[in-house]
């Protein structure tokens, strides 16, 4: 496992995901991806589900990757990496590895659409079969690649292009699906949440290093603030991510062996949810008097979940 020390040290890592890609200015996806691929010195084979990261990092005739990479479809990043990992096992057994002096690790990236929704079956299957890989969900809570449609990761009250706010609607009606817990319930040896937040670059890199070096299927759900669809200024990406953890809208925790939960960050003073919601255009309508109850509901859910996490951690279950 690569030791993640100071940022001064980490920044000496030769970057394996390069610029010249076509992601939006200020996109959190590439912040997360860079930290993940730089969190190990082992060679990598990566699969990526159809989505922003995929279309923007491999627009023919260009690739942004310094590591082996494959994209097949929207719903099969996990199956694709499972196949590559199986091939690695087979060739190792048959003594036919291409560079047997090097260690190879397997990572899959998918957006929330490709992970929570259409790719969930393939992810669940690959994890259940115990392939040795890390799956990173770049959770920007909507189908940003196709113009901001809702996904099952979209939180209540959010305006999206398929759950627009309107004269009679306040936007998305359902709560965000708790995918991290669902993945933990698969019995993965390691599951964690992460963000590209100013205080939390090390939390993310350490989690990635830990997950990659863990034998078996591991999962990181990384909140990826989307400047375009969440409607905030590109330079504020890191700040929005910070607000998500300071309000406990997206708490940072990890679960080992399917049950042992550890909270990785506790805000000194939990900020009210308005701070997070108010910073994003997708929630601006919630501040109208008639929608006040949604913010109250949000706060209640956040408090309950935060309480639940703390009680689980305390009980060691």
């Amino acid at each position: 496992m690569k030791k993640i020390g100071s940022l001064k040290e980490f920044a000496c890592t030769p970057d394996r995901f390069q610029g010249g890609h076509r992601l939006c200015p200020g996109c959190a996806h590439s912040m997360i991806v860079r930290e993940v691929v730089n969190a190990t010195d082992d060679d990598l084979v990566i699969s990526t589900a159809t989505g922003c990261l995929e279309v923007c990092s491999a627009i023919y005739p260009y690739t942004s990757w310094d590591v082996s990479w494959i994209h097949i479809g929207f719903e099969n990043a996990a199956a694709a990496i499972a196949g590559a990992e199986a091939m690695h096992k087979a060739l190792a057994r048959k003594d036919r590895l291409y560079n047997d002096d090097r260690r190879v690790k397997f990572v899959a990236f998918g957006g929330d659409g490709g992970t929570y929704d259409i790719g969930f079956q393939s992810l669940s299957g690959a994890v259940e079969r115990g392939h040795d890989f890390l799956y990173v969900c770049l959770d920007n809570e909507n189908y940003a690649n196709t113009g901001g449609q809702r996904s099952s990761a979209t939180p209540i009250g959010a305006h999206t292009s398929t759950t627009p706010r309107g004269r009679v609607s306040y936007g998305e009606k359902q709560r965000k699906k708790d995918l991290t817990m669902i993945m933990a319930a698969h019995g993965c040896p390691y599951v964690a949440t992460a963000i590209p937040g100013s205080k939390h670059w090390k939390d993310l890199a350490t989690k990635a290093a830990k997950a990659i070096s863990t034998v078996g299927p591991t999962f990181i759900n990384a909140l990826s603030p989307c400047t375009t669809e969440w409607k905030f200024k590109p330079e504020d990406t890191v700040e929005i991510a910070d607000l998500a953890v300071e309000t406990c809208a997206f708490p940072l925790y990890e679960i080992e062996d399917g049950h042992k939960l550890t909270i990785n960050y506790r805000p000194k003073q939990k900020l009210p949810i308005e701070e997070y919601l108010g910073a994003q255009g997708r929630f601006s309508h919630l501040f109208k008097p008639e929608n006040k109850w949604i913010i109250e509901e949000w706060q209640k859910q956040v408090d309950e979940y935060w309480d639940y996490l703390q009680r689980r951690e305390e009980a060691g279950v």
Partner: protein
Amino acid sequence: MATPKDMLTTWDKVQFGAVLPSFEDPEHKKRSKFHSYNYTVADWRVEKPVFNRELCIDCDYCWVFCPDSCFQVEEVVNKRGKKQAKIVGINYNLCKGCGVCVEVCPTPIKSLLMFPEYVDNEEALKQWPKKD
């Protein structure tokens, strides 16, 4: 039309299976012409970050949070013998001008500031805010 004219080839010369090699010379990590590192998104910019080496403390926040891998670093050894990354510049071919680096820069007077694209860097450094 994202492909520069000199990269456009004909049906009989396209990459087999559309498979792209990252490196032309993997041994020396020389990136191939198919690497986006050799593409430019400079024309996406309206404003650009300018880097003031004088004020930089090499915290490397800009390096870790830059979504476009623009920050060029040099590995140096500090007084205590530890390796660390020194920020030496910005690759303007890759910078889209998002401004994240400026936001995360923690120095009291920022060592990164946004300037209009047309302002010369030398000129920008002259305009830098001074300590009171």
